[in-house]
Every structure is written in C-alpha cells, then in structure tokens.
C-alpha cells in the first residue's frame, strides 16, 4: 500500500508575538492521498499559510509530526530536509516572491543551481520550463518588467523546476485580477494533471476551489473536508 502524500498528526503551533503568545492551531491532523488536487479554504488568521509551511518543512510544529510520502520531516537532519524540499516539494506564494535581482529564467534555474547543476544545465532546464508555462520570450526579463500574472507563472515554473511530487500553493491567485487568476489556476490544474503531483492550494475563491478534487475547510476548530471529514483538529 503506497503511503499517504501527506500525513500530518496532532500539529500545534504557537507564535511568540510582541504581546501574549498566539496559538494558531493545536492538535490539527490532516491526511491527503497522492495525486489529489486539494483546496484549503478558511477565514484569514486560522493558520492556512502556517499549515503549508509546516507541510513544506520550512517551519516546525511545536508538537506533532509531518510525513510527506512516508518520510517524516522531523527525522531528517537540516541538510537532508533541505534536499528533500528541493527535490520533492514546490512552493508558490501569494506575492510570487521572485528574486528581484535575477531574470525570470535565472529565478527558475535557482532550484537546479541549489541542487548543484551547472549554470548551463540549470538555465537550459529553466528555459524549457518557461516554454511550458508560456513565457519563452520573457526569460531574460527581471520580475519588475513582468505583469502580475506573468510573475506568478514564473513562480509556478520555479516551484515545479525540480519536478516535485507535492506542490504547496499559498493563495497564488489572491493578488491577481479575475482573468489572470483564472489563467494561473488553469495552468496549475494543467500541470497538476500532467505531472501527477499532489497539490494543496490555499484559496479564498470558492469558484476555483470547486474545480479541485477535494475542498478542506479550515477554522479555529481544525480542518475538515467540505464534503466529508478528512481530519479533525
């Protein structure tokens, strides 16, 4: 039996803010099968982004454990965790977060460079990826010279550069106009199907969420499937 794409058990996370500590969630569990395109919805501040950060291993839960394709992130030393992230997990952020000093193709080549590929190889692969997201002509443009939709497509190309098994997208269309948002979502959906990835998409847009395989609703109480319980906090 193949492992779950995501198995998150009894997660809790509290931030030490300037005032009293803020508990984002406690005892949250969340499972997802491989190959599913899942949408996570919920009001602001319930910890959707925090959940993605924990699933992607760029943050650590105060308690609980996260397994991605059967690999416990907690059990990996920092170096191995970074390599796992580089090879198996892609991130797309709401504000694209492209590196402003680098061109589009250099941004997309960055995961390959981190993996130790040569500049030429990394750039060649980045160009192929930009062709796939429809930005073949924009490779040598800096992010500020691109439109919002183009910036987000470059960010998607960068997230998928290493062919990850899991894509974590944090409101990737939240900052775009309706048309651009639809185009970016279409691209994400296409790439998801084409590559057989598991995708977790945080969104506030119910129309886009409806097009996903599964919808999860997140609240202060926990996370549950909108069509049936997937997990309980």
């Amino acid at each position, binding site marked *: 039996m193949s492992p779950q794409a995501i198995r998150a058990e009894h997660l809790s996370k509290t931030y030490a803010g300037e005032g009293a500590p803020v508990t984002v969630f406690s005892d949250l569990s969340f499972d997802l099968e491989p190959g599913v395109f899942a949408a996570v919805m919920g009001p602001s501040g319930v910890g959707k982004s925090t959940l993605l950060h924990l699933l992607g291993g*760029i*943050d650590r839960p105060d308690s609980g454990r996260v397994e991605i394709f059967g690999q416990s992130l907690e059990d990996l030393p920092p170096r191995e965790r*970074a390599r796992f*992230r580089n*090879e198996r997990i892609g991130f797309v*952020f709401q*504000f694209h*977060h492209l590196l402003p000093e*680098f061109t589009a193709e250099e941004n997309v080549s960055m995961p390959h460079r981190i993996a130790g590929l040569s500049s030429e190889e990394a750039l060649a692969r980045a160009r192929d990826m930009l062709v796939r997201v429809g930005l073949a002509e924009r490779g040598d443009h800096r992010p500020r010279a691109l439109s919002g939709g183009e910036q987000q497509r470059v960010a998607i190309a960068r997230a998928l550069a290493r062919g990850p098994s899991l894509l974590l997208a944090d409101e990737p269309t939240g900052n775009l106009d309706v048309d651009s948002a639809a185009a970016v979502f279409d691209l994400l959906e296409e790439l998801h199907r084409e590559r057989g990835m598991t995708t977790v998409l945080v969104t506030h847009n119910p129309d886009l969420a409806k097009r996903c395989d599964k919808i999860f609703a997140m609240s202060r109480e926990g996370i549950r499937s909108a069509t049936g319980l997937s997990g309980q906090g």
Partner: protein
Amino acid sequence: MTFESFVALRYLAASRKRAHVALISTISVLGLAVGVAALIISLALLSGFQDRIREQMAERSAHVVVSPVRGDRLPDPEAVRRALTALPGVLSVEPAIEGRGWLSDASGRATLPIRFRNLPKESERIVAGDTNVPSARLSSTAASRLDVTVGSLVRVLSTHTRLSPIGPIPIEILVRVASIRRGSALEKSPDLELSESTARLLTGMSSGSRAFEARLADPDRAEIAARSVAETLGPVYRVQTWRDLNAPLAFALRLEKVVIFATVALVILVAALNIVSNIALLVVEKKRDLGVLTSLGATPGALARVYLMLGAAIGGLGTAGGITVGVLASALLDRFHIVPLPSDVYLFSHVPFAVHPGEVAIVALFAFATALAAAVLPARAAARLAPAEAVRLSR
C-alpha cells in the same frame, strides 16, 4: 559557478543600483583599500630604511670575525688567518689591532678619549704619504671637538705602556690628519684609524692579534662561512658574523616593523567593521529572499556561504585596490625621491621605499582574512533566519 557565488556576486553587482547599499559597499571597499595601501607604504618605508641600513652594515662591517673565547690574543693567529683565507669568496683577511687612548691637538690643550684601530690594507693608501710622521683618518666628531682639519698634527697617547729608564710610560706618538671621515650612528667606527704598523706601535703588539676579520664577496653567506670556520678552528675561538655583531640594531628594526604593522593594521580592523555593517544590512534587506531560497531547498550553510562570499568579494576588491595603490605609490615615492632628507643629518638624501613581495603577501592575507572574518557574524545570522517568518513578514 556555484549557487552561493552566483547569488553573492549578483547581490554585490545589484547593490550599485541602490544608493544607500552602494554607498556603504563603496565605503567598505575603500576603507579596506586605504588600510592595505597604508600598511604597504608604511612597511615599504621601513623596509627601504632597513635595506639601506643593512647594506651599510654589510659594507662597513667585517663579515666574519674570529676572536679568542678567553684572553685578549688569538692563541694561533696564523691558523685563524689560514682558516679565513680558505673560505670561498673571501675578499680580505685582516688582523684587528685596536686600543684606547687620548687624543689632543699638537699643543696638547684639548684632550679627548678615543678608540683607535688599524685600517684595512686596501684603505691604507688614505694614510700613506709622510714617512716621518704617520698619518691617520679622524672621525668628524673628534675633528670638530679638537678643532683640527686635514693636515693638522695631533698627539695620540695610548693606554699601553713601554719601558723607559724611569719605568713604564704611556706610548705617545704624533700623527698627521690625512682625512676626516663622517661618522655614522650605525657603525662602531673608531675615532682614529691608522696603518697596521702604527696601530701595532700604539698597542705594543708587534705580532699576533686579538682578532681576525674577513670580508666576503657575498655577505649573505657569512653564516655558512662562520660555521665552517668554527668547525675548522674548534671551541677556543669565537666566530661571529656581521649579523651577530649588529644583532641589537637588527632586533630594534624588526621590532619597529612589527609595531608599525600592528598600529597601521588598526585601519584594516576599522574597515572590517564597515564590512560587518554592510553585510548585516544586506542580510536584513534580503530577509525575504533568504526565506524563499530556503523554500527552494537551500541549506542554512549555503545561505551563510552566500554572505561569506560577499565578504570575500569585498575583501578581494579592497585588498587588490589597496595593493595596487600601495605598491604604485611606494615605487613612485622611491623612484622620484619625493620625500627628501637633509643629507648632512641623515645617511640618505631621500626616504627610501622598498616593496618586499613577502610583506605584500602577508598584508594581503591579513586584509582578506579580516574581511572574511567580518562576514562571519552576519553570515551566521543569515543561516539562523527562520524562513517561514521571513516569507510571512515580507508580504
């Protein structure tokens, strides 16, 4: 090009376009360059003086001196002469006939305690001439104190005695001043230099010697020569080189160099503080990028190396600039005698500058290592950054 150097070089190049970062980066690079240049020029100045002093020491001192370990006469002067003469590259071997006494003008009014010794054979022509009255070379200090000039007669009273009908009396002779020599603080030159025969007369030493001195074609081979002579002659003789004889001065010169290095190197340390603030600013500015790079799989170590490479790039630029300016300035200062010295006071007519490649290498290594060390603190901060927080706070 590795991921770390790719990112570091791009950050450095891009910083030119952001005025405040560009200003701080420029100050960092210039600060380091000024420190390196100052250090190279200071060391070139000291090396210039030291080289000239060393040259003069080598020129005016005997290179190998053999004296008895005990007593004031060589047990076997001929054996010593043979051992020294057999040395490869030997130019001259001379006995050292020296003593102390008093000098007065012919009238006997002013009297001065002096040291006298024989001139090397090759220089005896200076005091050749009048066969009745021996000639001598007098130091300028003694000449001025006695108020005598070339051609004057002076009276020398030795501390050695000779037997007379009324008992032992000091040996006394009249000599003519054949030339006056400008003295130097660097050499232990005697006040009065005479021919060997006159010196023997004054010391009452008709044969033998208290020491033998050899001059070599290559003074740098003095240590090897001294070792070979010591092996030949055995332990009853003390064999010294010109470096041994001038050891206190050489030590003082080395100490001076170390002190100047330590003092001027403070400029580099101050420049390193600029580098700390420059790189720390870049860490803060690029906080979001660091979070993003972590999400792409960069390890904390890789992020730290990005900033270490920035330190290395700033260090490399500053060091290279400083070396160029320092070496060029030293060469020009030396070539065109830009800093003159009053030649009647100093040994040289201008301040000499000499750039030693070894010293430049030490300065370069020190400056580069300091710049790299300055980057360690901000680099560690970059490695410790919480990526999720960086990504979240930078929306």
